[in-house]
């Protein structure tokens, strides 16, 4: 039968490539379909964007160091706040997590690569072009978008040349995210090694399966929202114009229907990373594996019915205010399950405190602080005081910086030996941790006080009574920002050399990726491993030898 021959031919052509490493030259990175290469591209892109967005943040904090206008004129300040958010969300945090997914999901489930390797390449390579469009607006008449990353009309539509570029950049990021998410879902559902049942998957894989679903459901809604902005600005529609029967508040509803799942898109993979690290350094299996899965799924579901808690002060019927207050508080239940499970995992474990574990523990503590301030914000009458103050800024930086970014850094230290084949410098890693963790709290904790005292967000100047804590916060910002250069130094140093890492790397590490050589070979699991369940360790499959 010709199909059989063809099949054999296909197998041959794969075998031909089996023992090839990556092709030489820089174009390898442009044409690659290898999940490890693409993961690396995502991670480097995210790191670069982290520093671009960070530079903008330092501009903001420099201006706010003391009252009065000194460095940035107010319009440029607004451009900085807007672009800082867009870059950090779409350019740094999201691509970093996709980078982790690319590197780890196939290795964790015993797959030879992502399910759709060409599309995987495209998902990444749209991003540099999207950010070229976005960053180019800085050099246009009227400058970059300055109406806030939430793009509320009518303000955002008054932006001059940047409006169309902003909208198309967001479209491109959306296309990239949707294709990336489709690839992750298909890989997890279709590419698992035999015996890798869903409830044997590592929790990182579970968290990404659910995140990918959120992405596919949320990003098209954002695309619709910005398309309406485009036609309102350029083609005479009245979606957000009350004179034509539309409503500017409608944009906020559509935007936050995307925006709140987006928050969980940026934190669920972090939960996944932390759920891998804590068991390793506690030398105990994760406590309550299945409850972790259900909690993650519950958070994802509830995330679609809480969006209007971003809009309590905008003018909603009382029933709406109450509904969104209760659903928002409900999210604390599954999130609490996760935090308690992490603590129970550490309880009476043989804990050691290598750098990834330090970041993970800091994540649990500091993310929980962000969660509690979120609960405070969820209370509608209280939110009328907090809305658009620095309390909100403090809240979401605790969940995004000491939450998402800390998890990314924790994961980077954790898997760096597997990726590079070398151990990083533990002393420097600890220095990086302590510098960052102390400075980040100096940076963001005072912002709670500023917000409670009434300092509004997104302003370049402020009343004198806010001066002291702003100065403290700015000092923390510069220490935190420059501490990250140490991270770059450590990563580059680890790539270039260092102590040879063992295959398992960490004494307590379990899971398929630790059965591979360090560094992981260019192609892995072309023959699927067979998985047998270790009944004492659900969620940490062992390969059957």
């Amino acid at each position: 039968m010709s199909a059989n021959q063809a099949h054999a031919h296909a197998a041959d052509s794969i075998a031909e490539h089996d023992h090839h490493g990556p092709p030489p030259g820089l174009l390898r990175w442009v044409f690659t379909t290898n999940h490890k290469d693409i993961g690396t591209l995502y991670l480097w892109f995210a790191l670069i964007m982290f520093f671009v967005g960070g530079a903008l943040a330092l501009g903001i904090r420099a201006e706010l160091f003391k009252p009065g206008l000194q460095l940035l004129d107010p319009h440029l300040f607004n451009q900085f706040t807007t672009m800082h958010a867009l870059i950090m969300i779409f350019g740094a945090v999201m691509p970093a997590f996709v980078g982790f997914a690319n590197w780890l999901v196939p290795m964790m489930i015993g797959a030879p690569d992502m399910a759709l390797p060409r599309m995987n390449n495209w998902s990444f390579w749209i991003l540099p072009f999207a950010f070229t469009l976005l960053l180019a607006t800085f050099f246009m008449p009227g400058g970059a978008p300055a109406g806030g990353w939430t793009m509320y009309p009518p303000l955002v539509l008054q932006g001059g040349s940047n409006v169309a570029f902003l909208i198309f950049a967001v479209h491109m990021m959306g296309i990239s995210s949707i294709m990336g998410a489709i690839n992750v879902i298909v890989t997890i559902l279709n590419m698992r090694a035999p015996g890798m049942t869903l409830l044997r998957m590592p929790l990182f894989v579970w968290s990404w399966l659910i995140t990918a679903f959120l992405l596919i459901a949320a990003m098209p809604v954002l695309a619709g929202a910005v398309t309406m902005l485009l036609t309102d600005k350029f083609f005479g529609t009245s979606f957000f114009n009350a004179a034509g029967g539309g409503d500017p508040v409608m944009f906020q509803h559509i935007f936050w229907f995307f925006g709140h799942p987006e928050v969980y898109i940026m934190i669920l993979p972090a939960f996944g990373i932390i759920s891998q690290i804590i068991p390793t350094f506690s030398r105990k299996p994760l406590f309550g594996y299945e409850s972790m899965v259900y909690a993650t799924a519950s958070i994802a579901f509830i995330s679609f019915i809480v969006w209007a808690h971003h809009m309590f002060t905008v003018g909603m019927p009382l029933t709406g205010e109450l509904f969104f207050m209760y659903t928002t508080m409900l999210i604390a239940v599954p999130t609490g399950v996760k935090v308690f499970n992490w603590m129970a995992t550490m309880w009476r474990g043989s804990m050691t405190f290598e750098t990834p574990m330090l970041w993970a523990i800091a994540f649990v503590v500091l993310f929980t602080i962000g969660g509690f301030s979120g609960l405070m914000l969820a209370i509608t009458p209280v939110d009328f005081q907090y809305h658009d103050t620095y309390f909100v800024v403090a809240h979401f930086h605790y969940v995004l910086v000491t939450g998402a970014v800390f998890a990314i850094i924790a994961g980077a230290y954790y898997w760096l030996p597997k990726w590079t084949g070398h151990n990083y410098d533990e002393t420097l890693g600890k220095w990086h941790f302590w510098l960052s963790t102390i400075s980040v709290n100096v940076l963001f904790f005072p912002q709670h006080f500023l917000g409670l005292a009434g300092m509004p967000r997104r302003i370049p100047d402020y009343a004198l009574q806010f001066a002291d804590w702003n100065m403290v916060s700015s000092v923390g910002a510069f220490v935190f920002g420059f501490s990250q250069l140490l991270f770059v130094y450590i990563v580059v140093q680890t790539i270039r050399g260092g102590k040879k890492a063992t295959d398992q790397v960490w004494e307590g590490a379990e899971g398929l990726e630790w059965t591979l050589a360090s560094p992981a070979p260019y192609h892995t699991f072309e023959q699927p491993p067979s998985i047998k369940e270790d009944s004492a360790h659900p969620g940490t499959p062992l390969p059957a030898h």
Partner: protein
Amino acid sequence: MSATHPGYYIPHDTRWPIMGSIGLFALLGGFAMLLNGSSSAPVVMIIGTLILVVMIIGWFGTVIKESESGFYNDQVDISFRHGMIWFIFSEVLFFAAFFGALFYARIYSVPWLGGEGSVGATTGPLLWPGFEGIWPTNGPAEIGGAFGTIPAVGIPLLNTIILITSGATVTLAHWALKKNQRKPLCWWLLATVLLGLVFLYFQGVEFAHAYNDLNLTLESGIYGSTFFMLTGFHGLHVTIGAIMLLVMLLRAMRGHFTPERHFAFEAAAWYWHFVDVVWIGLFIFVYWF
């Protein structure tokens, strides 16, 4: 359950994605330039479109060649199926945003502008005294001037029948393919494509009628906005679906597909049914009620 990896085809080195990125960059960047009044923008957009067209033909061409050469085992087939399902799911959510805008305007913002409810009572009469929040409307400022609407019975009903019929013909084509009856397969596919084109023709007639005779335009307030954006995006998707089915027809005529393996055909058919379902939503909520 996914059985195996051996033989799971993993392509090496691909030029198409970077081409797609450059094309998309030129097309959308050029469009943004156009909206800012740049005179060189059309050239940039045309170059971007050409690059995208070459990319799409090249990329799908490569995949078709690999498929016909038998590189894809059942597991690859399943990957494609999952991928297409989730892609359609994302499209559903894109339309959901516009349906959401329609429902929000009709249920909340327009009645509020007319002074209804606790929100409307405090603002509506103060801002827009005398405005009655009744659908269809172009708002209290009557943006775009007085307009007429398209009755559901007429072209929309005719188009509903056409599109549902085309959903049946594509199913008949599928049945023919599964029985390996090549001729009926091609004829039913051709019928589907033609019905799609007829639908688009009528949609064009309807738009022309709206613009020329009813003064119903994209600028007719919230009614015109939701009407043309929903039907317009739907029409765009019908066009894409018709092109997909046309490619399937050409492939069927070249002898591609077997009764057991014809994922591309099924993907195009799924897409067509999706477009069909969206239309039914449009017919009910845009034209009828």
